[in-house]
């Protein structure tokens, strides 16, 4: 554990700060054996769940097996960690174990290759570094990631020094980061002043946030940045709590190092880190919270570290990643305006879980997790108020940090409203990985207090009832927290599902992509839909178009047969930018995409006719007769066209003439 400066001092039980007791040796081996059995059984149930999922689009059995497995994996660990008698070392070990086994859902999802949308882009970014030897190479699919090369550089270094493939190096890196993340939360909670029991409980509670199991375990820059962010906060709080002089200077160095690492890895995490540092610094500057000997100097250190981080971030965005502001601002602005429209009644909000493949009870749990968190947060606030009043949380750095993290945690509740806004939902979900850091630190002492309360009950059944209630709340939080994150098509493997990022890859698509690469080489500019583009832009090593109103390549698909294709400026742009190939997935004419969009960029789902059918129906065959397009490949679902722009004059034969040839076929 990161050792708090006042480690030897015992704190109030309400904060769960009590000397750890040595574990009783009796029954330890039995407990270890039972835990091992539960973990093995949980893993088996998880594998069974995914095996069922492989054969059906969505089946309730896969969810039942999955959650049976996850509860078998997590509940026993949580139970032992939360016991009063468990030693600090055992808790640390169990949290590390939890970090490893909670990586299983994402690992088993697709152990051998990327599956999620952003993973393909990050794979390509890493490939670019390894093949070109340079950073900041252009990346299709998510162009902004090339300006934040932290994850790609780290993965490339691992590939270079270990000889692993990109995907295997990425898997190893993510596993290590995942374990470091959950241990980092425990370390942070301890730095804020919680004891090992409450800190370990905080780490478990953090694991209920919607990003923990899947989103922050994907091969994407957020997954690395969240771990660096948490450890930067650990270093920051240690710098605040360390005695003046060299120890504080050392922790300051580490804070700057880790903050800089976060900045070069992920824009939003770096912004969040800066905001949290501002919050903590502000907390340390409020006399009612912080006034104690040397408090102004401590606040000065905090503001200095915050300023350095903000400066590094601003410099990076200004000099290296100027596109970051235009990339992020629509999410904030549009999300807020849509939410205001919902509030004023002038707009309709998102219908939650409207296209979800998951069962009703997951949806209910997703709503309940907010309620449970709210009740516990209120209890946490009451507990904190009581401790401030009876001076068990005296003025000083610990109170400042605790209150600042509490404020961070409380942001979770208003952020849940953004889930109703179509543009804000994604941002809200992503913010929970951050706000739950504060929420877990606020809730953990209450959970420990409730456990203490349960153990004080005289009647056995009462004790069992209390603990069962807490276990049920934990199960609901785990299920609901995860369900509030990614959709089932992301979480579970399964058969092909049109318009699902995570289930669009097929052997046919890979074969087409490989044929394209063999035939035309790499780095060609290609127009295609979002799902074909994931493979073509990653393993296919091509550059896919990013449609927008200024570059409306979707018009090529929507134009009716007989009409000239696209606005003239589009054809001119395609010609000048050397877009030579168009790839069509014929299924877009008959299916609506599972994630709601057909193209990357600003596709706002405007491609459905009033009857709900796709606008592309009956409009894709026109490419076969377009004069400046040649169909050079066709498989069951994909057609590849070579575009020959600018289009020449029509010189086609107008009368029937005799023109014959001969077909022959051999091996």
């Amino acid at each position, binding site marked *: *554990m*990161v*050792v708090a400066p006042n480690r030897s001092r015992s704190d109030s039980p309400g904060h769960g700060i009590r000397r750890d007791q040595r574990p009783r040796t009796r029954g330890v081996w039995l407990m270890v054996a039972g835990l091992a059995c539960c*973990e093995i059984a949980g*893993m088996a149930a998880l*594998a069974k769940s995914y*095996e069922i999922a492989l054969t059906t689009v969505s089946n309730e059995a896969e969810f039942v097996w999955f959650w049976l497995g996850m509860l078998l994996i997590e509940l026993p660990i949580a139970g032992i960690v939360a016991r009063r008698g468990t030693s600090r070392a055992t808790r*640390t*070990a169990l949290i*590390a*174990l939890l970090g*490893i086994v909670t990586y*299983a859902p994402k690992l088993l999802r697709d152990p051998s290759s990327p599956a999620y949308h952003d993973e393909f882009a990050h794979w390509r970014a890493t490939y670019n570094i390894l093949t070109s030897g*340079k950073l*900041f190479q252009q990346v299709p699919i998510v162009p902004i990631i090339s300006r934040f090369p932290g994850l790609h*550089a*780290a993965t490339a*270094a691992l590939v*270079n*020094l270990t*000889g*692993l493939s990109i995907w295997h190096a990425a898997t190893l890196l993510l596993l*290590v*980061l995942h374990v470091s993340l959950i*241990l980092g939360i*425990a*370390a942070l909670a301890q730095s804020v002043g919680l004891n090992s029991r409450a800190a370990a409980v905080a780490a478990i509670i953090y694991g209920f946030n919607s990003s923990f199991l899947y989103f922050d375990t994907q091969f994407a820059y957020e997954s690395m940045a969240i*771990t660096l962010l948490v450890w930067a906060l650990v270093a920051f709080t*240690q710098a605040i709590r*360390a005695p003046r002089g060299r*120890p504080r200077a050392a922790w300051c160095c*580490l804070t700057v*190092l*880790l903050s800089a*690492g976060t900045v070069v890895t992920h824009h939003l995490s770096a912004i969040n880190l800066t905001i949290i540092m501002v919050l903590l610094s502000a907390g340390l500057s409020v006399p009612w919270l912080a006034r104690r000997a040397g408090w102004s100097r401590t606040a000065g250190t905090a503001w200095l570290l915050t300023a350095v981080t903000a400066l590094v971030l601003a410099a990076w965005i200004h000099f290296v990643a100027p596109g970051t502001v235009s990339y992020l601002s629509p999410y904030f602005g549009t999300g807020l305006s849509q939410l205001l429209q919902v509030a004023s009644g002038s707009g309709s909000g998102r219908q939650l879980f409207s296209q979800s493949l998951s069962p009703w009870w997951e949806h209910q749990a997703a709503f309940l997790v907010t309620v449970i968190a709210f009740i516990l947060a209120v209890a946490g606030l009451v507990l904190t108020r009581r401790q401030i009043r009876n001076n068990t949380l005296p003025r000083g750095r610990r109170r400042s940090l605790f209150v600042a993290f509490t404020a961070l945690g409380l942001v979770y509740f208003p952020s849940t409203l953004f889930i109703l806004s179509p543009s804000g939902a994604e941002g809200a979900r992503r913010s929970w990985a951050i706000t739950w850091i504060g929420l877990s630190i606020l809730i953990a002492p209450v959970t420990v207090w409730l456990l203490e309360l349960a153990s004080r009950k005289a009647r056995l059944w009462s004790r069992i009832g209390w603990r069962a209630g807490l276990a049920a709340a934990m199960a609901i939080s785990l299920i609901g927290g995860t369900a509030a994150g990614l959709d089932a098509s992301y979480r579970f493997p399964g058969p092909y599902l049109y318009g699902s990022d995570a289930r669009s890859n097929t*052997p*046919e698509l890979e*074969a*087409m992509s490989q*044929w394209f690469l063999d035939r035309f080489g790499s780095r060609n500019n290609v127009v295609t839909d979002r799902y074909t583009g994931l493979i073509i832009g990653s393993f296919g090593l091509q550059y896919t178009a990013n449609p927008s109103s200024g570059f409306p390549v979707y018009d090529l698909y929507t134009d009716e047969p007989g009409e000239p294709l696209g606005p003239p400026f589009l054809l001119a742009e395609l010609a000048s930018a050397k877009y*030579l190939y168009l790839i069509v997935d014929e299924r877009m004419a008959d299916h609506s995409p599972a994630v709601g969009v057909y193209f990357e960029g600003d596709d706002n789902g405007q491609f459905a006719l009033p009857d709900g059918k796709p606008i592309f129906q009956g409009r894709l065959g026109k490419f076969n*007769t377009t004069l400046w397009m*040649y*169909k050079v*490949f*066709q498989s*069951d679902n994909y057609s590849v066209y*070579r575009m*020959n722009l600018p289009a020449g004059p029509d*010189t*086609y*034969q*107008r009368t029937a003439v005799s*023109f014959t*040839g*001969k*077909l022959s*076929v*051999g*091996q």
Partner: protein
Amino acid sequence: MTTNSNAHHVARRAGLLLAAAWPCWLLLLFGCLAAADLLQAGYPRALVAAPIVLFVPGALTLGALPVRHRIEGAFFGCLAVALSLCLAVFASLALYALHILITANSTYTCLLVLCAPLAAVAQLRLLRRARTLRDAAGRASSGRPGAVRRAGYTLAALGFGAALLGTGTYVYQHAPRPATVGYTWIAWSGPQVTAVIPVGSSGTALPFQISHQEATADVFRLTAAWAGASGAQHSMATPVMLRIGPDKTMNGKLAIPAPPGGCTYRITVTLTQVGPAHPQSWSVNADVRQRAQAQHGCGS
């Protein structure tokens, strides 16, 4: 008895040496990373190299700063990993800024250059307050009774977790899977079709490839047709019936004479499945024009 005592003494000395000079040992370990290249690329090399790459630079950073005594086992490891990753990123940025290509050698050298001063500072810090090796070892492990035992718990948990994860993944990957959906494709295989193909007086052959990636053999009909400005299809070759076995690729060609006149003809080669009620078809097309008549246009 004497042998046991000697062994114990040697082990104790080795332990002391290890604890007293751990920054040097870690630097040496990182230096030996180059030797890992001798191992076969893949899991064996990764097993040796990955822990060194992920742990050593960060651990040396922590050793160089006066923070190490404030962090315990697993947390020290996690912080070391986070710092190692940061240093790897900064090393790449430095290489990029110096216009040096990021390769295995340059990355290794850059990290070694970073690690060497860190190790030196860490070792100096360790020795500064200690006059003897024994004292240094004592200081390195002072205040940490049972540290090895505590680290052992975490290592055991990590080992069990990794074994469980590895076994689970292996079993899952090797479990029976539903058969993958097959597919068939046709594509031009000769020179790339980029514009209207000029055909000389002796005609030309347009080669193509058919790949049938299905579990069963199927029968197909191959046809060729041309179309002009009206779009009407005109058959231009006797259809060929062919049976293609599972996972087979076949090559074919359409031999054509010089197209009549100076006009352009759109040629389409179509493969149609024979048998099913709703037969699927695949096609490729290209434009051809007589080379000699190209400059005269398509006036008549």
